[in-house]
């Protein structure tokens, strides 16, 4: 069970449709300050259903959509698609491939997609279950947050273990 592809289109600085193919093992992402690396991490968190904008370095849905620049008009929507290989049946569903998607529009609305079908956020969260991806407390470690677990109070830290359990 692993991540095969990530496609961003209109998400933050990814105004152009951009695809990533992930190998099993380690994928490194490099580049200068402000180039868009952390935006990729945000896109994965967002596609997995994140609702807390403070964890997406934004304030509202509008911040997720390419705002334009001095040389380019803004986008009308943001779209992220995560495709998983499920041939080992890790996700308890029929498909050997699972595509989790999310779209957002300027009016603030969000859509959630599972293998091309519109579903509720709830369906995505249920599917992710206790894989560590539902709450993402230890699966998407944000920039500057590696030692968040050390700064937390003991009671707050528990959430990390509850998601793993």
């Amino acid at each position, binding site marked *: 069970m692993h991540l095969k592809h990530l496609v961003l289109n209109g998400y933050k600085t990814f105004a152009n449709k951009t695809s990533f193919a992930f190998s099993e093992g380690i*994928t490194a992402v*490099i580049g200068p300050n402000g180039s868009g690396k952390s935006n990729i991490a945000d896109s994965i968190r967002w596609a997995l259903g994140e609702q807390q904008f403070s964890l997406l370095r934004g304030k509202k849905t509008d911040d997720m959509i390419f705002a334009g620049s001095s040389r380019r008009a803004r986008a009308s929507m943001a779209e992220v698609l995560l495709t998983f290989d499920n041939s080992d049946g890790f996700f308890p569903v029929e498909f050997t491939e699972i595509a989790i998607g999310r779209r957002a529009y300027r009016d603030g609305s969000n859509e959630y997609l599972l293998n091309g079908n519109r579903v509720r956020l709830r369906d995505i969260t249920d599917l992710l279950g*206790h894989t560590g991806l539902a709450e993402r407390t230890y699966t998407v*470690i944000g920039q500057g947050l590696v030692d968040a677990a*050390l700064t937390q109070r003991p009671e707050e830290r528990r959430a990390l273990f509850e998601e793993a*359990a």
Partner: protein
Amino acid sequence: MQATFKQTFEAIATAFQSTFKILFGGGMARLTLTNADDIDEAGIDIHAQPPGKRPQGLALLSGGERSLTAGALLFAILRVKPTPFCVMDEVDAALDEANVARFRSMLETLSEQTQFIVITHNRRTVEAANTIYGISMGADGASTALSLRLDEVEMKQQ
């Protein structure tokens, strides 16, 4: 089957003693429950003692020691409860050469069961990767991504 919180906690605590020692090349660390009698409400304490030092509070640890301790905890969780993938955004930023080498080595071991997407400025970490994406910002404000081979990567050494 879903393990109880207690079973999971104990497995992670055991793994943590090991991952800490490996990442620090010595020293010792423990996880404890704040209240062993009330498992449903208890918080989790972290005790970390880098090699050659007296046990002291987490507050006194250095920047690099904090990153490495947090890394040890993360790796302990992943050893007990592997997740399909894990995204790490510059978690190696505060580590010196010796610590980056041990961190990378554990990353490589765990990558057999968990897929890692690692954003980094550190060449040593990049050398461990099977796939490398170079991200750039275009003049029009849009990001572009390019798949690179290691010999095409122009980073400074650290």
